């Protein structure tokens, strides 16, 4: 049993590790709240990868060329792979993939609210790559330096693949913009729908983000939501110009004094409704995951039973 004195020593060692920006590893002592925060954040990220397979998977069967079909299927497959790495990272914290999947299905754990928006045209595949993966990269790049070792290392690999996906998405939109008038209109319409939800991906504004301060002190998070959102807007504006699309915000303008773009007010009411479960696709996404999990139960049971028989033999 750990005494109060030992605990204080462990905690000061932990704090020193964080202060030196060294990694915390699974066998290291860590405060229980740090562990819980990590499980919550990494699981939410893993769930986002798995739920994120659905909106793009929606277009695999209708991809308009065989090359695009291969690219899309491979991308969605990568998302399953990201989910696997991240669930593995949470397993080092003492929680199983099955437990986490059950928490996703029960609604006890969240995933990125962006995936509660529908994909309504093939252009959405490109827009998700450009804006959604782009926003995810802005969020995730700093996490490569996060304090928990397995998470940081998983993020390095994931960021590389996300950046590749983002380029593929942007390249699809570029190609469509060189196509017919209908295709250009499709791209613009898709950007119109996904721009604001993409900005919401950075989470609530800093003054309404209760977990940020502690997560930053622990080195789990390294930038605030608003800082990352601003970075994303500043990066995206020239890309939109190069693409030839308009971002649907009349207030979007360069601010010489701030050396950054001003932009309009996000509809936080919609954000909170989507986070709260009332977005256009929340029920559908969870039902899809739940059905896949339930439909696969007999297979997982068979695999376990077979493995037990093999061991016994």
């Amino acid at each position, binding site marked *: 049993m750990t005494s109060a004195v030992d605990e204080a020593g462990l905690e000061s060692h932990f704090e020193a590790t964080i202060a030196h920006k060294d990694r915390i590893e699974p066998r290291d002592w860590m405060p229980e709240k740090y562990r819980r925060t990590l499980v919550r954040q990494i699981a939410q990220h893993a769930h986002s990868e798995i739920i994120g397979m659905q909106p793009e998977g929606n277009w695999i069967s209708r991809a308009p060329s065989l*090359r695009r079909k291969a690219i899309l299927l491979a991308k969605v497959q990568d998302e399953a792979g990201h989910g696997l790495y991240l669930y593995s990272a949470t397993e080092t914290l003492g929680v199983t993939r099955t437990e986490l999947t059950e928490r996703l299905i029960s609604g006890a754990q969240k995933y990125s609210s962006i995936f509660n928006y529908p994909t309504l045209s093939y252009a959405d595949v490109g827009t998700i790559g450009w804006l959604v993966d782009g926003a995810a990269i802005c969020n995730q790049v700093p996490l490569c330096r996060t304090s928990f070792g397995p998470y940081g290392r998983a993020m390095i690999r994931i960021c590389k693949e996300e950046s590749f996906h983002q380029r593929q998405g942007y390249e699809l939109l570029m190609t469509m913009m060189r196509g017919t008038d209908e295709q250009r209109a499709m791209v613009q319409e898709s950007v119109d729908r996904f721009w604001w939800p993409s900005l919401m991906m950075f989470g609530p504004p800093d003054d309404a983000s209760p977990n940020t301060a502690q997560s930053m002190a622990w080195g789990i998070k390294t930038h605030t939501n608003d800082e990352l959102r601003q970075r994303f807007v500043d990066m995206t504006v020239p890309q939109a110009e190069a693409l030839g699309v308009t971002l649907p915000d009349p207030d979007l303008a360069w601010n010489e004094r701030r050396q950054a773009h001003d932009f309009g007010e996000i509809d936080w009411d919609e954000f909170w409704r989507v986070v709260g479960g009332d977005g256009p696709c929340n029920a559908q996404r969870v039902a899809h995951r739940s059905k896949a999990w339930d439909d*696969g139960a007999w*297979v997982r*049971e068979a695999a376990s039973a077979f493995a037990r028989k093999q061991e016994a033999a």
Partner: protein
Amino acid sequence: MPDGTVPEHSTETAHAGPAAHGTDHDNAYAGLLVNDAHWAFGTDFEDPLAGVDTTVPDGVEPSVLAAYCLMLGDDALVASERISEWCSRAPDLEEDIALANIALDLLGQARLLLARAAAADPSVVPALPGDSPVPDEDRLAFFRDDRQFRNVRLAELPNGDFGETITRILLLSIWRLALFERLTGSRDAVLAAVAAKGVKELTYHRDFAGRWFLTLAQGTDESRRRVTAALTDLMPYWAELFGTHDVEAAAAASGVGVDPGQVAGEADAVLDQVLAVSGVDRPEAAPRAGVRGRTGRDGLHTEALSRLLAETQSVARAHPRGRW
């Protein structure tokens, strides 16, 4: 020849450096506007047969070679479509990834075979408006109707449960691997190369399906019930795989193709081996009849194919001048 797969991910902007060098990752996003020909490596359209000599060998009727390639290509394309329907629906993440791999391999085979058909006999390629940029492989995939598809019916049946999909992949891969092993000796260098690449892929598909068939057959009562039911449902389509169509006979006679009737014995033996290891009896199954003897190879399909194609082709057909 190019192997038709998406190349390894480009790594020029993202370094897997230690935390201290983490700022390098910022470039992954900032680099989006870099004007680099390879910046989205693998996404530029390349003719899958670029740089390959597609001359039809002497003594081979181009229309026969093209029709034969369409048969093998359509088998792969339609099976790939069905398997990719599993994406985000598999029993666990590992199986989701594995099924996507199999679908991607078959899609890659389909692209090469459709491109080979078009190069051998351009008259098989559907005509589109004169300014259409749609490449031949996509014209063949998206602008033919079900009656012009030459795949076997087993490939197109609607998906059942995971046991059904495993059983179907097992049957198809046993058959196709036996064909492709012989096809590596084709007088058509393109087909021989496609087959050589395909043999490696199909060996994995057969292994994956065989292991799962055994696992399900020996797992629980429920899994055994399901997988044996799937086998009973699918076996009536087995004989169709080994019927020799006139095109296959002609392709075999001219040394470019394989007569599927020639691989029946070997395929039966492999299947019997999997069944024996799994402790499953081979069901008595009368072959599923066609219509006046016509089946998939004749363009006479189940009701499921035209629905599958209606979905697959919907976006492409709405934009016959589209650039993707």
